[in-house]
């Protein structure tokens, strides 16, 4: 009997058309707790190093966690784990919506996708059954059309569809997988991987539910969480949505602008959350099971950027299609967001690629010849929207932009490298790592998937609030007295910040609710209570932390096998130059090496290589990852 988990893994081989249901092993699952932790084990053990992410041999794991689809207040997530064609690293792309919960209600915690279909297919998973069905008629359709067609065809309005659009079909290296129309497993190019496998969509629905080991205790733990979250320190996010951060960040001088040339946008008011909510919001929308409801539902009813109702845009998108490109037209941003959703594009990499192209154009590194006579000027809203179209279809200059900033810079030469803002090939998200955010700078440098604000993402909240997030019993907040140097302190602190954040990753929870302290967020202790009541296992916060450490180390080992070491834990050159204007003028990152030394040391990793030492891996029961 399984509690909390569905207890099953579904294996789909697209080459042979065979599918197989496997029982999960309880003790092995508990070691990793599930979701991305267990997916890391699966991918590490089943996919040898060096496999081309777009080859049939590449595997993809769709992972839910123990709290996915339960009443845990932010438990609506699933994550897609794979080797990224954009970066060559480990990648995990999280998404909310209904897909994760419905996959679990259909009876599966994990889906492993292997091989490549001869012709386009989609996979239909429902109540323990799985069918691989022809999708020739869907190929070439956008995400919305695909979703509508499948709802009609399967005659069920309650299915959840995760599909790729034209961008994934055309192999854009940062194409996304979009579920429930407007929720994106965005980063790292899972859309291109689906496209390479001729896999158009995965459809799920289920009526199985999740069994709870101790229903009364579970209800009590959830009630406690609901109460604690009344004091949640970031409670203002739902009121405006994540896009509320535009004004806040701009007033602090940390709103990335013009390809990170600066961090202050004079016209931020025009693209702010306040403006979005006042003029374009239709309603608030929640992911399945989430009490936060930070999602917006918007449309542009008239004008040249008219769009039908759609989820978003989120903060990241508004900055990336807005300030990062110098664009101050919110209607164009909403349109760009809509196009990214229907074509299946990561809005962050899309915006950064456009901004990079604009900077290259400004510097004469891209000329009218390459752009077919279209000037790529900062702030040109129409050009931004046109480029989104061109990228998705790999048309004209779009074919260059579709490769992402790192590859573009390689083709445009050394002068372009100066302007290339990425880590390990992943374009930076909309959070300025200079200014106060020095721990965030470290996070960008070392995160397994490249410049990442999400996995795990407590660094910026630490930078600003030094919240303990329930880590008191493990020694936070700090700084440790025996370490004098501030940069070294930050390196050590990040060990705890990362591991606390990784707990949400292995449980399948959205990260938002894990920032705060006892009585105001879901701490590791409260997660332990919830997970214990759900599963009937006696899980402690310390056990969760160890599982998180296992997961974090294993992702590092996955990257090591692909050749990533300390030399790759670096930041774009731009961040050693000072922010030129705005409230945080003068700030730059100068202490990365010191932070890295301290962080590796604290993690039990070798300082020279930045890789986990064999003793560390043995201690965590990861002998198989020693090489």
């Amino acid at each position, binding site marked *: 009997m399984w509690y909390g988990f569905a207890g099953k893994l579904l294996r789909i081989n697209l080459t042979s058309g065979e599918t197989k249901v496997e029982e999960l092993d309880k003790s092995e699952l508990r070691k990793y707790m599930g979701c991305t932790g267990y997916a890391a084990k699966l991918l590490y053990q089943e996919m040898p190093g060096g496999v081309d992410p777009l080859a049939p041999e590449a595997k993809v794991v769709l992972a839910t966690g123990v709290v996915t689809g339960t009443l845990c207040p932010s438990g609506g997530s699933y994550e897609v784990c794979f080797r990224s064609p954009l970066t060559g690293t480990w990648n995990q792309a999280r998404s909310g919506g209904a897909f994760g919960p419905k996959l679990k209600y259909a009876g599966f915690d994990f889906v492993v996708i292997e091989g490549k279909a001869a012709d386009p297919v989609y996979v239909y998973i429902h109540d323990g059954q799985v069918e691989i069905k022809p999708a020739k008629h869907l190929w070439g359709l956008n995400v919305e059309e695909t979703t509508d067609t499948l709802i009609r065809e399967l005659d069920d309005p309650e299915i959840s569809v995760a599909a790729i659009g034209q961008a994934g079909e055309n192999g854009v290296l940062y194409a996304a997988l979009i579920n429930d129309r407007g929720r994106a497993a965005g980063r790292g190019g899972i859309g291109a991987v689906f496209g390479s496998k001729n896999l158009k969509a995965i459809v799920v629905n289920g009526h199985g539910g999740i069994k*709870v080991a101790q229903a009364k205790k579970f209800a009590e733990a959830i009630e406690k969480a609901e109460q604690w979250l009344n004091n949640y320190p970031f409670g203002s996010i739902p009121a405006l949505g994540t896009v509320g951060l535009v004004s806040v960040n701009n007033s602090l001088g940390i709103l990335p602008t013009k390809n990170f040339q600066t961090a202050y946008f004079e016209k931020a008011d025009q693209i702010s959350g306040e403006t979005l909510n006042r003029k374009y919001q239709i309603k608030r929308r929640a992911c399945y099971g989430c009490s936060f409801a930070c999602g917006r539902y918007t449309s542009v009813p008239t004008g040249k950027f008219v769009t039908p109702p759609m989820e978003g845009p989120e903060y990241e998108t508004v900055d990336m299609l807005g300030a990062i490109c110098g664009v101050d037209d919110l209607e164009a941003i909403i349109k760009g967001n809509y196009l990214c959703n229907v074509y299946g594009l990561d809005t962050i990499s899309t915006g950064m690629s456009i901004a990079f192209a604009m900077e290259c154009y400004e510097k004469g590194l891209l000329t009218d010849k390459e752009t077919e006579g279209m000037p790529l000027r900062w702030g040109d809203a129409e050009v931004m929207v046109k480029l989104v179209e061109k990228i998705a279809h790999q048309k004209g200059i779009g074919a260059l932009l579709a490769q992402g900033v790192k590859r573009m810079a390689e083709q445009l030469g050394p002068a372009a490298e100066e302007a290339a803002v990425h880590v390990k090939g992943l374009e930076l998200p909309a959070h300025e790592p200079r200014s106060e955010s020095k721990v965030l700078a470290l996070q960008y440098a070392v995160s397994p998937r490249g410049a990442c604000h999400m996995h795990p993402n407590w660094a910026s909240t630490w930078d600003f609030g030094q919240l303990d997030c329930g880590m008191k019993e493990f020694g936070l907040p700090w700084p440790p007295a025996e370490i004098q140097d501030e940069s070294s302190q930050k390196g050590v602190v990040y060990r705890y910040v990362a591991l606390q954040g990784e707990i949400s990753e292995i449980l399948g929870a959205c990260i938002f609710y894990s920032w705060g302290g006892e009585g105001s967020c879901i701490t590791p202790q409260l997660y332990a209570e919830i997970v214990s009541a759900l599963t009937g296992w006696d899980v402690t916060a310390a056990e969760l932390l160890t599982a998180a450490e296992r997961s974090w180390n294993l992702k590092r080992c996955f990257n090591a096998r692909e050749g990533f070491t300390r030399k790759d834990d670096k930041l774009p050159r731009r961040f050693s130059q000072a922010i030129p204007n705005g409230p945080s003028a003068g700030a730059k990152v100068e202490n990365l090496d010191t932070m890295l030394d301290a962080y590796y040391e604290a993690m039990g990793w070798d300082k020279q290589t930045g890789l986990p030492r064999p003793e560390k891996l043995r201690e965590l029961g990861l002998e198989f990852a020693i090489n």
Partner: protein
Amino acid sequence: MSKVLIVDPTLCTGCHRCEMWCSLTKYGEINPSRSNVYVIRREPGVDVPVICIHCGLCIDVCPLGALKRDRTTDAVVVDSDLCSGCGACVKVCPYGVLRIDEEMDIAAKCDLCSGSPACADHCPHGAIRYEDVRKAAAKRRELWAMAQAGKIRS
């Protein structure tokens, strides 16, 4: 004054937590398919919780007298000892909020949780509330009128 369950769809975000609480409270598991409140989430932008209004139509058609009115809450409740799962009530319910529970093979419907409704207690946005009957009636009139005018929107 007694209380009535009332919904305000304009406040609903489509989170489905009410369904999860209902199934947890009633059956000790988390399963929106075993819930007695139904959240209809559709595109574009529709999130509407649908609940039993305890009108009692189902009482009249039950051949076994298994549906009764609870005297304290005025809820229409299923007597599981008498119900055979024939589904006559499912056919008559104008709101589609009765179902035959597959596991127990009898009719399942909202019973107002004997006066402390889990769904209303836990809705994060107050979209389902257990309210004084006068206030609830006023809200019902409002929703009814607006629906007729095709103007329910948020």
